[in-house]
């Protein structure tokens, strides 16, 4: 039983669901503690090199002032840490596009996060899980103070300055890279297009899949346009007020419309009356 375990000192606290609860406090003289839950990372579908199953620890509820670096330091006591990944929500590892310079990485939301800690050795996981519940992890100590509040904001402000030449350099490298990619893409498409052409003897090589020779992909809009054109064509062919029943229907629709409008008016009045909106003072 889990609750009974929490009563014993120097013992790990394990809750249903397999998570171990650890305490974490900001500094030694803090009075309150956050409870972080850890568990070995175990997802069947995922087999990426970034999160090896036996060495990755999944951590919940990491306070906003704990950066990757701080977490790395904190968990080093259980064994050497290979990498730390902090995310807003648990989920599979995502590849972000081309590598961006620091100026261009989008700002992250600074809330509570979940973490994936990859240890160098699998034994560290067990060490963490058997860490006693009542010995808290300390975020900010004298040896490695963690900046929060004013200190942090001033620091951030200082960091926010971008050297124009450095920035220019980042832009240039990216754009070169981008142009190269574009060129390669164009090259590839050109090749594909060439493949579709007749060769000297009048043969066309038919390839599987990629059917388009167009340089631009089909767009959803043009798709819809085509469909609309079809339906319009069909409509044009139809005769509207030809049969008596069609004529009768239009009249019926008109009366229905009027009825609806009348009801709306009545409703509006009824509403105002109900709200005593006619009492002038």
């Amino acid at each position: 039983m889990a609750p009974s375990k929490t009563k014993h000192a120097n013992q790990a606290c394990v809750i249903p669901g397999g998570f171990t609860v650890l305490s974490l406090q900001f500094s030694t003289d803090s009075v309150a503690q956050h409870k972080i839950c850890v568990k070995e990372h175990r997802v069947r579908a995922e087999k990426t090199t970034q999160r090896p199953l036996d060495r990755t620890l999944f951590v919940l509820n990491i306070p906003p002032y704990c950066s990757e670096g701080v977490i790395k330091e904190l968990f080093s006591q259980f064994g050497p840490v290979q990498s730390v990944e902090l995310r807003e929500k648990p989920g599979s590892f995502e590849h972000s596009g081309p590598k961006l310079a620091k100026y261009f990485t989008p700002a992250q939301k600074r809330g509570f996060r979940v973490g994936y800690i990859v240890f160098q050795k699998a034994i560290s996981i067990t060490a963490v899980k058997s860490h006693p519940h009542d010995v808290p992890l300390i975020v900010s100590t004298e040896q490695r103070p963690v900046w929060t509040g004013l200190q942090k904001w001033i620091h951030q402000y200082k960091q926010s300055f971008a050297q124009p030449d450095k920035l220019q350099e980042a832009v240039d490298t990216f754009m070169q890279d981008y142009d190269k990619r574009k060129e390669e893409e164009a090259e590839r498409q050109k090749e594909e297009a060439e493949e579709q052409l007749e060769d000297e003897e009048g043969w066309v090589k038919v390839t599987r899949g990629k059917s388009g020779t167009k340089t631009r992909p089909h767009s959803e809009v043009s798709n819809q346009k085509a469909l609309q054109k079809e339906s319009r064509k069909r409509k044009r062919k139809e005769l509207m007020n030809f049969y008596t029943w069609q004529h009768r229907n239009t009249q019926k629709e008109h009366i229905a419309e009027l009825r609806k409008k009348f009801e709306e008016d009545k409703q509006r009045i009824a509403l105002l009356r109900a709200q005593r909106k006619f009492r002038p003072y």
Partner: protein
Amino acid sequence: VGPLPLRQMAQSESSHDEEDEGPTRAKRGKPEVVQDGFLRPVKLSRGDLYKPPTADELNQLKEAESLFHCSLLKMQMEELLKEVALSERRKQLIDSFVQSVTEQLQTVPQTSEVELSDLSWLSGGVKVPFVLVPKAAKGKFHMAPPKSVTIMGSYPLGTCTKPGISVDLAVAIPADVLHPKDALNQRYPRKRAIYLAGLAQHLATSPAIGAMRYSCLHGNRLRPILLLSPPGKDSSSITLRLHACPPPGFFKPSRFHPQRNNIRTDWYTGLGSSQPGEATSEPPTPHYNSSVLGDMLPRAHLQFLTAVSSQCTAFAEGVALLKVWLRQRELDQGVGCFSGFLGSMLLAYLLSCHRVSNTMTAYQLLRNSLHFLAFNDLTENGITLAKGPDSTPSLAEFHTAFQVVFVDPSGHLNMCADMTACTYKQVQHEASLSLQFWDDPTVDGFHALLMTPKPMIRTSDHVFQLCELVKLQSCCKKLNLLSELMDHSGNYVLTALPFILSLLQRGLGQRVRLLTHSLTPDPEWPVESDAPKHNAQPPLSFGLLLNPEQAASVLERGPPADSPKAEEFRQLWGSRSELRRFQDGAITEAVVWEGETTCQKRLVPRQLITHLLQLHADIPESCVRYIGGMLDDVIKVEREVCSTGEEESLKVVQSYDDLSRKLWRLEGLPLSITSVQGAHPALRYTQVFPPVPLKLDYSFFDREKLSRSLVPQEVKPCPVYITPVKVICHMEGSGKWPHDRVAIRHIKAAFHISLGELLTQHHHYTCQPSPSHLDVWKDGLVFRIQVAYHREPQVLRESVSPEGLLIVRDNAEAQALEMDTMQRPLLTSTLHGLQQLHPCFGAVCRLAKRWLGAQLFSDDITEDTADLLVASLFLQPAPFTPPGSPQVGFLRFLHLLSSFDWRNNPLVVNLNSQLTAADYTEIKNDFIASRESLPVMFMATPNDKKVSIWTKQAPTVQMLQRVVMVAAESLKILEPQLMDNSQLQDVRVVMRPPLDPYDVLIHLSPKQVPLLSQAVDPPHATFSRGVLAGRVANTGGALPVIDFNPVTHYLAELRDAFGDLALFFYDPYGGTVIAVLWKPKAFSPLPFKTSQMVARRVEVSGEEAHTVPNVEAILEDFGVMGQGLVKTVEPRTERWVV
């Protein structure tokens, strides 16, 4: 502003949706859809929609189709009439009460004859309702049962309306009590008053009568009346007014010709110096005469009106509508009012001269009477109901004696005797204004016409009051008004009023469009006390409707020195008038008033009024209470010269114009600039505290190593906050732009760099480029230039599906970018244009936003939303005119917030008048069709008819409710305070939010709040924030600390971390407290889930694990995250338990 159920407002959007689940509608499709006060699209079942119509129904539908606008208005008016009509129960109550009073009156005992001045026979503490000055009076008096008791006035005519039902009962004094010569020297009015006292004494013993009070008819002290109300619970619902009047035909009407004298000077002054032969020199007493005449004619009037109304079926309803219209404009009560009786007479006049026909509906009657009022000036061309020219006085004679002339059917009485020309002008103004918006399909005519009250403080741009009315006595002396005083039988307030009005009208001239004054309410006093003195009444209030072009001019240019009019000018302005030479060479008389800044100039009318009153009417400045700029204080910029920010805004705009010119001229950019647009409130004059050019003290700051930019020091107070003024710079479209979102961002960064280089190179501005913007330090201000590419939102919306299909999907990122680079610049330029039309637009916006900020609503009603709300006040002012002063604009803003029905109506802000009537209908229909999915506060503009982009994110329904409530409270406190000088004079009360409904208060260290000086109650202690006094350099210098506000960082972090658990409120203008409110469901345990483990701890029971918020740790985090900024965290644990 009391504590309000704040707890609800933290409820999440989801609960709102639940509550909006429609009530299950009846299966038959009956329109029982208004249970919860919510309009929703009508859904009729197929059977109902398509059943065969009957002939009747068909007709009805056709009518509704052709008269759509009209029929709704017609239905609305019918409903209104039902509301004001008397119920049968009420009528029975009145009849039985009248019956019992009549019986009581018949039993009045006869008393013996005594001298008129002998009042010893009166006992039981009943006093005479008359100011007996002078004391001497000839004649005999005795009590006798009335000759007749008849019911008169609106009740028998059927034009009596709720509320304040009063029924008139005329008690004829028997002929033997009176004497034919009693009309002279107030003898008759005194006898009448004493007779009333006798009646009161008799009725006092009767159990059938509840409360008994005296009052006087339309405030005329010569015509006291006795108010009776039934006993018990009905006492407040009806009032019976007893009028004592002479028996019919007792006095000859010709005696009361407006040129005749009926009060002798020697009697009135008590000097007795005049000789008997000099009767011709006696001044006429028209007002006295008409007050006696008025007593003799009610019966004839009733007969006349009954005859007229029996001809016209809608007469009573027409009068009722007119009465409602007048009452909403505060014109129907008090001295010289346009009473309901006058309304009936007016309709009768229109019927008699065939301006309206007998078959018209009430709606048409009202419309035609307003039309008549709007286009006929009774101050110049009076009208008469009398048929032929017989011995009655001519209209010209009436005009010499009275300001407004409307003669009754007898031809002897001017029914508008007490009305001032100003009051009539006000009626005219209101009528023409009403006609203007009546037909406008974009205005809710019914609401504006009949449902919106127009109190003076919310109607007039400036208001001033004369407080100590006793001073008017000396004023009468100074203006030499003895004979007028005699005519008004000593009522010096009424005597002086027309003269003061004409004086002010002359002095104000073109500055005002309309000068109005409050109508002194009818005094009421208990029968046991003496009649109140003439000054025992609320202060006289005057309202000014300013002419925006002229009102603030400091110069009053008079005629040339040698013209004959110069003397007149000098006489009017006294010592203030001086000879001046102007640039065009003319030498003229002129008066120059003080005023440097806009806020001082706005108060020029005040200087003018106090000067004139002091000079001509002996009214000292201390008696004049001017209510025009009472609220200016809260938006004052701290400067040597007092200013409410207009000048500062102008400076920012000028500096921006200069920058934009320089940007246009830049050469050497790879692509050319296609537009430079401002996107900041300061560039449309609506920034609450516009940025001020600053000179910095470099020693206060640290330096960044490479760029030598200034950075804040931890140990010192937070440096002065510098707002970056955002400027959007669109670049030409070209094939060179990449078609990729990340690449576009890089290209934009490259543009920022090269723009910065060019600006530094050519103009020596200090620039700091960054990927998202370029900061330019110029003229002591910071401009933040943001390069935009018009196709970028489109690129953001596009994505390629795995099948190679190009998909266009709207997303938040694209919307935000579009808002930043297109919609906000457009709004800014549109509102900038509005400011040019209405000079006080910006000031109203600033007041409104200051209030929103102070009440901690800044995050819910954003700046753009607030500006649009204020813009709607200017664009659609009906039934008012566009606000002409910040104060009145602010009051109307509060009224709009508190009274607008956001649930059922979209607020259409017709910027640049681009929307047509058809657009309005379309907006309304779209709105009703999809109400539930639209923002709670829906505002449509010409560019945004369906989405309401500005209010999409906020407010939530709970916050809107709260805003509405607080606005109503603020208005309730503010308006009486402005109008009543006996109340505590501190308008800042409405700017101090109640903090008791909040759960945790985070107190901030004032040193680290950079905008501290903008607080509602700025603290005395000041810190240096690195600013020096002196001239500001235009170019160069180190880059200052820009946009660094620790509180904003702190709030953002708090919301990121704890946004799911709590709401955070803060006054962005120098607040030192962050108020925290737990969300209602925050503390309920949740089952353990990896996605719901934010700042929570686990509680295990059995095999189940639940999580609850780790409140102790959260509270500690408040402190940790705001280290250096947070002073204390005050959890109010008495309000909540975990």
